[in-house]
């Protein structure tokens, strides 16, 4: 089971500068664990208290995983997982 994971600029320090990496897993959580086993430090930037961090968006193909099960969202062979930092802020 191989999926392609697109890594945003700010996290490429954890992937030796690579824009995308291959990974395996049946859920987003497994994919993240698989990457973590080779690129330590990434998981901490994505997951907090067993949930996706508020500051990050993760997509399976075109779908934001928040709407399809979060970390338990299913991933199948050939899917693209895209990680993007949320662009957000405010006056407070």
């Amino acid at each position: 089971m191989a999926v392609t994971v697109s890594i945003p600029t700010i996290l490429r320090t954890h992937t030796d500068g690579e824009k995308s990496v291959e990974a395996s897993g049946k859920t987003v959580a497994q994919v993240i664990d698989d990457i973590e086993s080779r690129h330590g430090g990434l998981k901490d930037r994505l997951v907090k208290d067993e949930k996706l961090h508020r500051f990050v968006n993760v997509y399976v193909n075109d779908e934001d995983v928040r709407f399809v099960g979060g970390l338990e969202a299913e991933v199948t062979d050939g899917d693209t997982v895209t990680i993007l930092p949320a662009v957000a802020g405010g006056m407070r």
Partner: protein
Amino acid sequence: MLRIRRDHVDAIVAHARRDHPDEACGVIAGPDDGSDTPERYIPMVNAARSPTFYEFDSGDLLKLYREMAANDETPVVIYHSHTATEAYPSRTDISFASEPFAHYVLVSTREDDVADFRSYRIVEGEVTEEPVQIVGEAGAESPSIRLNPDVTPVESYMFANTGSDDVPDA
């Protein structure tokens, strides 16, 4: 320093005025070749539709980053407005900021007649304000803006060699 075209400045301020009192947000993309040149203006919808918070819609965000990747572009400028406070990054702005190579532009629309227009680097939680150099002359339709006189190159040139305010001239 941020070098930015007058028509882009005008578009950002007009967007901020239009969405006031809600915060407005968007991007100016440019070539991902280190040239640091904002070229393609892309206003974004504030999915939060709030006077105190902004967030790019997650679907729009994915579309934007795919487009930029396809065009070999990077977000050179990421802008948003504060509608009741100064044009300075808030704690929330800093905690979300995750493009270390972007110029974070803040516009304040708290005054009706003039908008503050300031630019920052935000890297690993550290905020550094930078000068803004506007390329091109203001037109008749250009909104009134105010740069931060403490960091703009013209002002610092004008006030050069006059001594610091807290040190009396000899």
